[in-house]
């Protein structure tokens, strides 16, 4: 009985990990509007929201507010766009981008642990 219970729990746990981290979509999505800044909170290892949707050619303004004191979070890097910005703690730092090509552009901390997406449609 215990064997069945433990094995079943293990298999369910693996299924949950697969579903939660790969299949389930992030609910922290925000649509960018021309001329309006979106606030992105940097705290506890994540960006909130972690997905920003914007139209190709629009100016996207992201106002990063870093609350996390870990040095890992002190820079946000848009690697494909060759952009990066230092984020002082408890201050809003504006990153302004204009991307012409539709696609998904990741923004991360330098080590790639904090991850967010800029979805250009």
């Amino acid at each position, binding site marked *: 009985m215990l*064997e069945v219970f*433990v*094995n079943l729990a*293990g298999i369910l*746990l*693996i299924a949950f*990990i*697969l579903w*939660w*981290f*790969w299949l*389930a*979509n*992030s609910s*922290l999505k925000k649509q960018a509007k021309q*001329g309006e*800044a979106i606030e992105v909170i940097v*705290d*506890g*290892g*994540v*960006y*909130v929201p*972690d997905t920003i949707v914007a139209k190709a050619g629009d*100016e996207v*303004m992201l*106002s990063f507010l870093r609350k*996390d*004191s*870990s*040095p890992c979070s*002190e*820079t946000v*890097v848009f*690697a494909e766009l*060759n*952009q*990066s910005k*230092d984020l*002082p*703690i408890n201050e*809003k*730092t*504006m990153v*302004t981008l204009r991307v012409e090509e539709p696609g998904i552009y990741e923004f*991360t901390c*330098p*080590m*790639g*642990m904090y*991850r967010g997406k800029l979805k250009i449609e």
Partner: protein
Amino acid sequence: MTQKQQESCQLTIEGMHCASCIKSIEAALHEVPGVTNASVNFADKRAIIIGRAEEKALINAVKSAGYQAEKVQSEAEAQDKQEAQEQAFLNKVFWKMIVAFIVAIPLFISATIYPFLPPLETTAQQFVWLGVGIISLLTMIYSAGNIYAGAWHAFKSHSANMDTLIAIGTGAAWLYSMTVIVFLAVMPESTRNLYFDTAIMIIALINLGSYLETRARGKTSQAIKRLIGLQPKTARVIRDGEEQDVALEQVQQGELIRVRPGEKIPVDGEITEGTSTIDESMLTGEPLAVKKAIHDEVVAGSINKTGSFIFRATHVGKDTALARIVNMVRQAQNSKPAIGRLADSISAVFVPIVLIIAVITALVWFNFGPTPRLVFMLVTAITVLVIACPCALGLGTPMAVMVGVGKAAEFGVLIRNGDALQTAGKLSVVALDKTGTVTEGQPKVTDIITGEGISESDLLVLAASIEVSSEHPLAAAIVEAAKEKQLLLEKIEAFQAISGRGVSAQVNSKLTLFGNKELMLENNISIDDLNVKAEKLASLGKTPMYLAQNGQLAGIIAVADPIKADSAAAIKRLHKLGIKVAMLTGDNRHTAAAVAKQVGIDEFFAELLPEAKLAKIELLQQRGEKVGMVGDGINDAPALAKADVGFAIGTGTDVAIESADITLMRDSLEGVPDAIASSRATVKNIKQNLFFAFIYNIVGIPIAAGILYPFIGLLLSPIIASAAMAMSSLTIVLNANRLRFFKP
């Protein structure tokens, strides 16, 4: 209120679309009490506000007009703040580590060496251990609260990170131990193990690793700190005829600034009064101080050596050459070469995979392991979680790029991004532009050969007197040579330029001709006496020009674009790095061959138009070569863009540093082997880091899962695993730091 009593403040404005936005922002700023003037510059997205107004009120006014505003702060200010924040973080981590060790060490000693804590058997002992459990929990909250919060934040947003692994590992150890204490009666005796010491020791070691790593990381950004430190914090601005010290970020374009001996130059500008020698070595790597006088340019970050002078600010704030360099280095330090992207894509899925491996490990030990099964499954799963180190994977590339790009900047080599860094190390051919790259780019008189009855000075006076009226590029070299020798020129009459031949004029009523061989032959002047010498000069890549007076050859003046003193040495270094060197030039074959021979160039292409240079780059690429092109960044722009890596070479800060893959601040070819050697060293360092990170995880995780247990009975303790984890990322930071001592 007079102008002097007022304060000024600058804000950066975001969200402006057109010129009409300026008016609405200016109007909003004027509404703020205390503001006497506000002007917005659309181009640099900046508002300058004069008056005594609160910064917050100004920012709110801009926001209410529908735009975003931030206070402008100097790089040095931002750097100081960042350092203070890092120090505060270090202090916090230090105390977290100390508290965790204070609790962990006695628990560890009691569990392993000297059991001064009672066993867990009676109800009274249950209470003692419950107390230990609570102390452990409080320690975990104090020393690892951020880790649990981080894990939870990440979980909510469907991601997992380092915190997730530590939180689950230590959380499981604590929960299991508490379960044993509370449900002691129902737990089989063999499973009554407590893991408080493990949980707290893991936390102590993680904090120790984090502390050491943060300290070591601070050193990786030394290059940028050094660059920022070049700029003083204040400038001595002359306002209304009075000198006053003004914070650097408040200095405005067009203002006059006084610099005294020994002071650093605060912003870019042009000297209006006084002379001095200025040391630009920190910026360009050029060791010699440069003389500067009125109308000469000065750049922020250079050091005034001797004189006192006044200059007019032409570029301030983020527009100074130094600020652009700092920005470029910083952007490049944060960019990722292709080699690092594999590790990046793995680290994105790494943690969930480790979670799955931990579950599988637990199940395998539960189904096939020895008794007590519950204990083995718990210990191995925790060990797997805490040994896995996604940080090692994530750190390898950025740390090495950070140090490598910074180190190159110290040699006056600005690398634009990670890809340029990586490709530079793979180059097989470097193509050099000739004029201004291999040579100095400014023709000079190199030889004066006189005929009978005339001195060198007299010959030069005659030539310069005629050439002063000429517009030919070589004429300037002759006139300059006469000026340098402080010779007085003669009056001339009937000046005539003969296209493709030279010039003629009457000097002291004598017909004087100055030009090439054809000019002499057409005027029936014998050049036999000096012809051998002239031919020899031509074979060395120099241009001999003949001077004849009254039908007689008086002498020859040779002009050449001198080869830079260190060109040959730099090309030798490129050969040593296994790189072939080609030369592309618009100049004639004769001169090109002579220059190529003197500096040791392997292959040259002469008489090329700028478009043809591009075609030659393509030709080299079609041969399968990885081609680097070195040129001045303006005339050679198409070829630089076509090459796998374009190097722009320029004197000091004149070049447009954003235009090329790699910019050489020093006007010397030595920068090319410096850049290539830095690139190779950095890429090698990245490879070492990634190799170590992969091997560590590939070997560490199976051992932690107990793969060696059936063969040699080896099972890792979670404490050893967490120590290994903390040390693995520290090892990578330290290895990247080795690059700081690199010398090309």
